[in-house]
């Protein structure tokens, strides 16, 4: 495969070679939310295209006898939060965030990952155990002495936001529901979608999944929830690529047959969907057709709903929500390159005064802001956002990504919900008022 082909396929090598495109304009540095608040991170240009020229062995790191750093000349790249804003801002097309992620993986290759980094990567394992013992695990995570011990022993900051484990997983709830209902014929791709719930909806926030399922149903789509595993992003972020690839392949094996039949794959976590859309190929270097087919079929839920609206197929019978709603667009959503679909959907809700907080990153960046040494950085990154939300005096806020919601809630004390939960609330207001559908379908009948 030539480099040109590699670049087209956005593979691991091509990411490295993309440093050729850097003209050192420093735009990446000006958008980097981490470099802005700490000297510990020297910025995307430095750890990206600049340091890249000093890293040997792109495909296979070459061990240099007698040199302890052979695999990892640099350490500061570990302070990249992986928010991806640099890549989206680069006018020359350097894959900076992807390069940083790969460098971190290379830096950690050959070493056993820290227990903490490994643990933070295993969101599905942590979720399963946490749900199994949910009363105990929720008590422990809320217990200050235990959190202090966790901080000193494994390095998870005592103040880091943690969600509450659900009493059971979405998967098990869903199976029960299906059993109760009995087997029904699965509708075709025009009347059903495949839901990628990710770890948060599975283990912590079933209400987000419930909102998604209900809204989709209201708009004429049944939900299919196949067996699935963590998308792998927490593993990628923690530099554990081998396990991330295993997760990716499991998911692709399940999702590809659906995608090939024309089913759309909808997710409620912008980071999971971005991982499936882009990172399986760009970071994990998976170039099977499955990866492309699945990537092309994957949608963020708000992106999907807005698309329905643009086709005139969205039920717009929202009831009135007379409130201010601060909205934070997660950095991962920006990497989708789909604009801010939630804001456009909010505009359809009568009375709702949604305001984009226009801040690049809340600082949590997945698991980054949970780590002891990075928690203060994450809080500093998000500080202007927290201030704005608090200043708004609004009773609740909205954000598409789970870890951001937890971070914002923890930092501001303001309840923060997924946009679709807001939309569902608006639908329910309409129901309570005895409203009818106000979509084009209804209009056609009048």
């Amino acid at each position, binding site marked *: 495969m030539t480099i*040109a082909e590699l670049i087209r396929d956005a593979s691991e090598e091509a990411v490295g070679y993309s440093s050729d495109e850097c003209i050192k304009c420093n735009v990446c540095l000006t958008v980097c939310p981490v470099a802005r608040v700490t000297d510990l991170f020297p910025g995307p240009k430095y750890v990206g295209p600049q340091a890249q020229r000093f890293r040997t062995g792109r495909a296979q790191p070459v061990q240099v006898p007698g040199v302890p750093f052979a695999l990892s000349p640099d350490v*500061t790249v570990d302070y990249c939060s992986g928010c991806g804003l640099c890549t989206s801002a680069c006018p020359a097309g350097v894959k900076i965030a992807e390069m940083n992620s790969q460098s971190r993986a290379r830096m950690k290759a050959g070493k056993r990952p820290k227990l903490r980094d490994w643990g933070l990567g295993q969101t599905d394992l942590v979720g399963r155990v946490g749900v199994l013992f949910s009363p105990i695990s929720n008590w422990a995570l809320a217990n200050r002495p235990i959190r202090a011990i966790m901080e000193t022993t494994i390095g998870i900051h005592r103040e880091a936001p943690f969600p509450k484990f659900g009493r059971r997983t979405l998967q098990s709830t869903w199976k029960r529901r299906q059993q109760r209902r009995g087997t029904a014929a699965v509708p075709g791709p025009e009347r059903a979608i495949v839901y990628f719930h990710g770890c948060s909806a599975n283990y912590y926030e079933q209400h987000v999944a419930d909102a998604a399922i209900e809204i989709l149903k209201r708009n004429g789509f049944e939900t299919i929830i196949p067996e699935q595993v963590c998308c792998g992003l927490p593993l990628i972020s923690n530099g554990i690529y081998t396990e991330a690839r295993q997760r990716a392949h499991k998911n692709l094996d399940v999702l590809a047959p659906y995608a090939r039949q024309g089913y759309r794959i909808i997710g409620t976590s912008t980071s999971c969907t971005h991982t499936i859309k882009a990172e399986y190929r760009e970071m994990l270097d998976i170039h099977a057709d499955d990866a492309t087919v699945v990537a092309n079929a994957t949608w963020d839920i708000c992106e999907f709903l807005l698309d329905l609206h643009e086709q005139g197929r969205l039920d717009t019978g929202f009831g009135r929500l007379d409130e201010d709603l601060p909205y934070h667009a997660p950095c991962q959503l920006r990497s989708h390159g789909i604009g801010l679909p939630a804001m456009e959907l909010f505009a359809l809700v009568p009375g709702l005064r949604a305001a984009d907080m226009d801040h690049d990153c809340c600082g949590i960046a997945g698991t980054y802001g949970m780590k002891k040494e990075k928690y203060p950085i994450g809080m500093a990154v998000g500080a202007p956002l927290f201030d704005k939300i608090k200043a708004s005096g609004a009773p609740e806020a909205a954000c598409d990504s789970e870890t951001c919601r937890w971070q914002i809630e923890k930092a501001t004390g303001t309840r923060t919900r997924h946009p679709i939960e807001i939309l569902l609330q608006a639908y329910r207001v309409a129901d309570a008022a005895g409203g009818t559908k106000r979509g084009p379908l209804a209009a056609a009948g009048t």
Partner: protein
Amino acid sequence: MGEAHAYDVLVVGGGATGAGVLRDLARRGLRTLLVERGDYGSGTTGRYHGLLHSGGRYVAKDALAARECIAENRILRRIAPASIEDTGGYFVATPDDPDDYVDGFQAACIAADVDCEEIPVVEALRREPALNPGIRRVFKLPDGSVEPWQLIESNIADARAHGSDAWSYQRLVGMERDGDRIVAAMLRDERSGSLTRVTPRFVISCAGAWAGQIAAMVNVTVTMHPGKGTMLIFNQRMTDTVINRCHKSSDGDIMVPVHTVAILGTTEQRVEDPDQYEITRDEVAALIRQGEKLFPDLGNMRLLRAYAGVRPLYQPPAEVTAAAMKDGRQISRAHTVLDHGAMDGVENFVTIVGGKLTTFRRMAEDTVDMVCAKLGVTEPCTTADAILPNQVPGKTYWLGHRLADHEAEGGGDAGLLCECEFVTRPMLDDFLDRHPGCSLDDMRRGTRLGMGPCQGGFCTFRAAGVLAERAGHAGVADVAELADRAILGFLRERFKGTRPIAAGRQLQEQWMISGVYEGGLGVESLIEHETPEASREVVGAQR
């Protein structure tokens, strides 16, 4: 002019050969002075592709040269490890390379004592995925890459430790001959214009492609056939291994990873004057076309600059054939010591010609052996055994060291004067302490300042500031003028090498840098006021 300086031997030329000769003489107890018209290693030594030959390149055509290469390769790895990166080398047979050459290659290597092992093509492609997937066979040889300026510095430092001297920016402007002997040499300081007279017992010309000009000063004819070799520098390594085409030498058939870059060599073209040559865009295009046989995607990779060096090729006049005149590659790369006593009746004068950087130490040994015999010195050569100063046995160069060292110091851009090549203020200060009065271009050779993708764009004004600050502390009156001239001189030199390759990203980079210096800093106003001296250019782009 003060009193004449008496030395046992005067060495003319501060390239690798001159430095090696100086060191060898000094270690044999001869008080020696080396003079160089510019900065050390600013001639052919600093303008080659950086290859430490395994000898594989010569096994088929010039077994003597091959034997010398592998022997010196082993010695240099031992005595100058810090100047060498042990990249290893592949000789790859592309679909365009004839079978008979490839089939006989390994046997020819073994005959010349060059280690050569055939490895599976898949293994080579796994290690170097940018290689042409159509290659048919791969041989692994002990090639490497060399940092020439550091090597020269080490040799000079060793010579100084043994009581000898080296002066840069001292141009030999004339020699006095009295009958069959040279009795004095006149030097002109290239920066101040002052003259110095030296009275050596013996003169050794290590002027390489310029040897004819030196010999002419005492009416001796040395006919050099300077061969221009053009090379291209790529922004980053597409290979961590030296890649050679396994065929009879031609243009664009070797890629050498050196430091952060990869260098594609080379061409061979006769030039009349080693100071006057150009690099054309056609040459660049032709090199890339050939290089694509090794790396199919070369045309898409970013080029930083083109440069050329002039090979010191020599052939005794009687053997010059019409064929050899047409293609310089036919001339032996092995070296020759010309005894001007026997040949031309000048008893205390020899010239060393031919050779290559890999064999510089052996060239020096052969030369000094002859000179010692004439001077009645019986000390044996020790340069192959003694490890050079500032070298740690067995510790070869590692690309990541600058990044790792800087990170260990806390990292970050703020501490970097040259962001592309990770040059810090302490590195510049250290260099300037050792080389007072040097130019930004000298600092570049010593530290790699300005050798990365922005080609001086973001470091020139910073480094000029350092020069001015130090000059101010040293009592220089007009530091602003000094900084202006430093900026102009360096940018001119950097831009020259990018001209033949300006396209794509590198052209954009140049436009941006021009914008910074012309639009932002008003460099045009300096050009209006510049003095004729400041506008003097060294002809031929540097590396």
